[in-house]
């Protein structure tokens, strides 16, 4: 039956590592399975910062943080979860500082904080513009200190359940090519986002969403709010590498081809510091109405900030521009366009990270707790990963104490056999279709049909296209038969998951006939609380997702029109 651990965490980004550390602290036998070596996880790429009402730059309160988060979410966030996240934020940030995170500092030696969109005060703690790097290294360092076991370069393919509880997982060992099984009393999914379903994404190439798709397909755990896809307003034209919101936080301007700071026409009070969904739509509108450059991008102008400030606060951004765009932002404005950035939706779970399957937990970007609702504020995701990573580890440990004894051998063996047969069939497939074509058509379709602006016709066409791609996927052939590091096999296993998630996004967006947060329907441009102040829950069936709605937890903050 393979290896056994009491708790298996899938994913070694911030949320996975934090979950494992918490389980370990509870004296449990925990191991991590990850697609990559931990420091290669996508959390490394976060630039701008992590939110916590420390009050180091000006007055602030956790209540204000909670309100901004709920308002930013367009009232779709669950307020009990937001309460937990914002209250725990200062403690979490101090803990990371104690573990060694090299935060940037104020004159009096405290953790520095910068303004971010949608926040009433400068609340975003940062380490220049490599905050994710600084945090992920600290978390990896801590896991070395605690001796956390990591099985790296293994891809989760299946979550095994029997009756209503989890039994373990099946993986592909990328280095050897073997299909392996792990039994566990509890499994925590912390596999990050699915950005690479889209053609223009800021995400790491490994962010294919397989960690959401496979549990959904194999363990029937539902997904929540997948139609809420965040488009970051400022990604480098061409490669879509992120230009952090910190660039606007530090005073950067957005200009169209006439040189106008166009945000004055959209959100004159907060200008460039409006929340992401609004800025992304404003930029896209400028482009669509012919005021962008080459019908494709606008400028992020930092030139007035000066060499010194850019070197001190945004050195990584400067390097990226020099290497990837051949320009120095000290001298020239940066060409930017909106790009897919974050998934507000994910595996459905509650504020204790519990899913519908006993013993199965989810945290971080692969989960939907939901603290971000229809739109996540910058700096709240790193916070989410650590707060809920810790909680997932904590509640999994509690679960273990009262868990009924159960024999999972049969269930795991059967699933191992099924997955092996499936992979085998893929390896020996002799179809005509080149899977790379499916992958690129999917990416292009998602940008056009489920992008910044949506409507019924585009979404319906997208659903039709997905059906076609799914059919074609059945007739692909692999290009390689090598056992070790077979990227062809790996990427085509991931592709199946991408198609499944894309369908959930499209159908959820089609059903949601309103505009809320990042989900903007040109045919239904207003928010409709009467019908849609609800979470979308998707269950997997062979014919695509079965969708239901579930109430949002509203406590302190009554929904009101969202104005900035």
């Amino acid at each position: 039956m393979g290896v056994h651990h009491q708790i298996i965490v899938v994913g070694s980004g911030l949320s996975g590592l934090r979950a494992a550390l918490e389980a370990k602290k509870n004296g449990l036998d925990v191991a991590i399975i990850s697609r990559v070596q931990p420091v290669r996880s996508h959390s490394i790429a976060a630039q701008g910062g992590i939110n916590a009402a420390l009050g180091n730059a000006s007055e602030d309160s956790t209540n204000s943080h909670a309100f901004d988060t709920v308002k930013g979410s367009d009232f779709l966030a669950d307020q009990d979860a937001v309460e937990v996240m914002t209250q725990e934020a200062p403690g979490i940030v101090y803990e990371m500082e104690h573990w060694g995170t090299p935060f940037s500092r104020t004159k009096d030696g405290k953790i520095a904080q910068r303004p971010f969109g949608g926040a009433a005060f400068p609340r975003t703690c940062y380490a220049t513009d490599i905050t994710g790097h600084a945090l992920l290294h600290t978390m990896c360092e801590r896991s070395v200190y605690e001796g956390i076991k990591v099985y790296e370069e293994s891809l989760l393919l299946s979550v095994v359940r029997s009756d209503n509880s989890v039994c373990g997982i099946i993986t592909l060992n990328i280095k050897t090519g073997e299909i392996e099984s792990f039994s566990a009393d509890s499994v925590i999914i912390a596999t990050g986002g699915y950005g690479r379903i889209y053609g223009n994404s800021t995400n790491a190439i490994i962010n294919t969403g397989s960690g959401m798709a496979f549990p959904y397909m194999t363990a029937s755990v539902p997904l929540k709010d997948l139609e809420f896809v965040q488009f970051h307003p400022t990604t480098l034209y061409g490669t879509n590498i992120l230009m952090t919101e910190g660039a606007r936080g530090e005073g950067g301007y957005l200009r169209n081809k006439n040189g106008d700071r166009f945000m004055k026409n959209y959100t004159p009070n907060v200008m460039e510091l409006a929340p992401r969904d609004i800025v992304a739509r404003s930029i896209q509108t400028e482009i669509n109405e012919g005021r962008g450059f080459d019908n494709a991008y606008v400028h992020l102008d930092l030139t007035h900030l000066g060499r010194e400030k850019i070197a001190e606060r945004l050195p990584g951004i400067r390097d990226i521009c020099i290497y990837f765009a051949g320009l120095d932002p000290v001298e020239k404005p940066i060409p930017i366009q909106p790009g897919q950035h974050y998934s507000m939706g994910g595996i459905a779970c509650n504020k204790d990270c519990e899913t519908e399957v006993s013993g199965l937990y989810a945290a971080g970007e692969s989960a939907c707790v939901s603290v971000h609702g229809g739109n996540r504020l910058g700096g709240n995701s790193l916070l989410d990963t650590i707060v809920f990573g810790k909680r997932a580890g904590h509640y999994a440990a509690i679960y273990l104490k009262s868990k009924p004894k159960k024999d999972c051998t049969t269930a795991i063996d059967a699933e191992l056999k099924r997955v092996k047969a499936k992979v085998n069939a893929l390896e020996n497939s002799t179809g005509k279709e080149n899977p790379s074509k499916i992958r690129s058509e999917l990416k292009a379709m998602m940008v056009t049909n489920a992008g910044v602006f949506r409507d019924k016709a585009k979404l319906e066409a997208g659903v039709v296209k997905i059906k076609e791609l799914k059919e074609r996927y059945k007739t692909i052939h692999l290009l390689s038969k090598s056992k070790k590091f077979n990227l062809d096999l790996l990427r085509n296993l991931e592709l199946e998951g991408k198609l499944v998630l894309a369908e959930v996004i499209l159908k959820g967006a089609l059903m949601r006939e309103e505009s809320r947060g990042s989900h903007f329907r040109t045919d239904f441009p207003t928010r409709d609380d009467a019908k849609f102040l609800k979470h979308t829950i998707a269950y997997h069936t062979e014919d695509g997702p079965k969708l239901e709605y579930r109430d949002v937890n509203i406590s302190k903050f009554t929904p009101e029109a969202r104005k900035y």
Partner: protein
Amino acid sequence: MITFKIERFDPDVDREPRFQTYSVADNKEMSVLEALFYILENLDGSLSFRYSCRGAVCGSCAMHINGRNRLACQTLIKTLNSKTITVSPLPHQKIIKDLVVDMDNFFEKYEKIKPYLINHSVEPEKERLQSIKEREKIDEMVNCILCGACYSACTMSALDGKFLGPAALTKAYRFYADSRDTAKKERAEIVDSEHGIFRCHTLFNCSEVCPKKIVPTYSIQKLKGAVAKKRLS
């Protein structure tokens, strides 16, 4: 057209590495990593290489490109100014397959230097204060992405399999120089070992290749000074 000469090796079937040639359309804005994906998708599905962020922050894609260790994602074809691009795995490392090398040794050394902040005093309720000046001292070292480019370029690391190497030593200095760390003596002892800092012959190979413009030699020299001081006292 650009010619890619790529080193191929599958230890399961090949006795020794060989070069295979591919032609890729001359798209100057393309990075070497994108070219590898092009080859994978269109010319040869059996090619293996590592990737993750494609933005020069995760350290996955370090390899030997036109005579030098670089990040494939950060290296645009146009900056190489060459019609032929030769790509091999990081030198002196065990090859798993093609461009993928075994990084276990590298990370074992990283773990040896105790890569975590050590401070046994009672944790304050809020942050430990650190002045802007104190923070500046580690500004460069914290940028390390553990890609292994320096390690694999280091002649001493190639000769002495146990030498801690530039990346681990830079990490050691990152903590040594952190005003919040209280294990200076312990750290000096770890790096003052048979396979520690004094094996560094200051060849600067590491500093030359670092994609993050870090100078490991600086950290190593600083540690040498610290150890000398410790020995004297």
